[in-house]
């Protein structure tokens, strides 16, 4: 049965084959390496970066306080924005048209106004509304506050960023909800689940797969967006370094300090986002594919 050619094939073993030489890849690699080297050289040799100053201020107290404020604003804006956004998304999909119209109006308004304009607007609310009061409409007043006491830079920042974020999150969550198959709703109804149970246990967890990736980008955008609050004298990271360079005139090194912190936080957030995506991908093909791939690796 065995022929001569089959025998000679049996002797050949491709395991010891050598990689092919690919000239274009070598040239491309060298080009990229030289660009990286040139960049590094620029960063190191240009004395105007003033790296010692960067090192001196990187862990400066007021810079860290500013960073903490930026993180806090991001967290508050994201939590309030997501909660309000979830209600707005559900409202936009409501079968009761006044709720639908109100939700759509809110999203249209707050998505349409630039966040910087909103921040300045909320900060100057006292001009439009000197006193804020709670009471029966056209009747007696129960509580009343001076708007100037309520609207500080921090409340203006929280209101502005949260409302802006809510409008964006509403759109993201709505898209997520719509991505869930109608059959899931049918099955949940047929089993007698309440609307709330259906929404929180069946629809939202499945919508998460679609909601998480753009939400990760939203968190990053919001973190960077907190730098806008420096215009209303709110002590965020950018404001903290501005205060320092207004005194020392070391503008570039101080901006580098801010850039380093923004990049560190964004990198950490990206890692967290990947983890969360994997978590909510349970039971879907994507994970199944990963698992089989891992199983194959183990076999080999």
């Amino acid at each position, binding site marked *: 049965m065995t022929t001569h050619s089959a025998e000679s094939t049996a002797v050949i073993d491709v395991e010891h084959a050598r990689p092919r030489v690919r000239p274009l890849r070598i040239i491309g690699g060298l080009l990229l390496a030289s660009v990286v080297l040139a960049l590094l050289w620029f960063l190191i040799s240009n004395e105007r970066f003033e790296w010692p100053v960067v090192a001196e201020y990187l862990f400066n107290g007021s810079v860290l306080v500013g960073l903490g404020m930026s993180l806090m604003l991001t967290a508050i804006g994201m939590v309030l924005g997501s909660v309000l956004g979830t209600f707005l998304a559900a409202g936009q999909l409501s079968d009761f048209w006044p709720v639908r119209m109100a939700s759509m109006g809110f999203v249209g308004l707050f998505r349409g106004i630039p966040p910087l304009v909103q921040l300045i607007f909320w900060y100057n609310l006292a001009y439009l509304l000197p006193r804020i009061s709670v009471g029966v409409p056209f009747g007696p007043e129960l509580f009343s506050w001076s708007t100037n006491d309520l609207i500080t830079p921090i409340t203006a920042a929280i209101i502005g960023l949260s409302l802006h974020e809510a409008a964006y999150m509403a759109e993201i969550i709505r898209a997520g909800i719509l991505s869930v198959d109608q059959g899931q709703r*049918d099955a949940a*109804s*047929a*089993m*007698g*689940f309440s609307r709330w149970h259906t929404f929180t246990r069946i629809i939202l967890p499945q919508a998460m797969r679609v909601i998480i990736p753009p939400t990760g980008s939203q968190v990053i955008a919001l973190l960077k967006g907190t730098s806008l609050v420096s215009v209303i004298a709110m002590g965020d990271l950018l404001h903290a370094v501005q205060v320092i360079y207004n005194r020392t005139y070391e503008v570039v090194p101080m901006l580098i300090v801010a850039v380093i912190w923004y990049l560190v936080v964004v990198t950490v957030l990206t890692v967290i986002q990947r983890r969360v995506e994997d978590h909510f991908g349970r*039971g*879907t*093909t994507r994970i199944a594919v990963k698992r089989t791939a891992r199983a194959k690796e183990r076999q080999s």
Partner: protein
Amino acid sequence: MTMESSGLIVQPRMADGSPLLRVSQVRKRFGDQVALDGASLDVYEGEVVAILGPSGSGKSTLVRCIDQLESIDGGSMSFEGDLLGFEELRGHLRPLTDAGRRRQRRRMSMVFQQFNLFPHWTVLRNITEAPMRVHGVSAGEARRRALELLERIGLADKAHAYPRHLSGGQQQRVAIARAVAVRPRILLFDEPTSALDPELVDEVLQTMKTLAAAGHTMVVVTHEVAFAREVADRCVFMADGRVVEDRPSEDFFTDPRSERLRTFLTRSGRSQNEVAD
């Protein structure tokens, strides 16, 4: 463990001879399209009723209306003597609240063409969720019942798998177990084998036969003429949103009265032979 404790055997309750489910003159339209045009149907305790008919005849819409997944535009339905979806309030019929509708739905279960298992939950949680959350069964009891049902349909080893890792036939059997786990008074099937590859149809039909033999009241919308003939007590033929023939199974196939049913049976018989070839 007895058959009864797993929910596979049902004890008859309506002893007064009135139907368990009564559908009378139900009308339903989707926009301009009339889906149900005065459909009527009675289902008695312990009966297996097969609904056959060409596509677009309204048979799926009918079972979806019974489970109140669609609202009806006219006529009425009652289940165990209760009007479905409406109540008399201050001298007029008014739609039930969500909670009222949920209470009525608890006594029925539905199996869908596309299975509609919850993909983010394991097989076990798919089955235990409704008994626990809707019917107040304890976690341990729900789990015990679910594992016993899985044992019976031969999928005990899949309890902790996610639906995506099961074949279509296995998913549909799990969906049937999920429907049975709440011990419904009636089981509704909406074309349970239409989305399956041909070689997976039999295992699902086998599971349904077991349920029928155990005395479950079942309404089955199906294209499986052979199954209807073998398992159903009564067969209902629908066309253009109406029930055209409603007969005991033996007469339905041997002595069809209407021209439309005769044509339908000849055609489906021919296509089944083609499949067999």
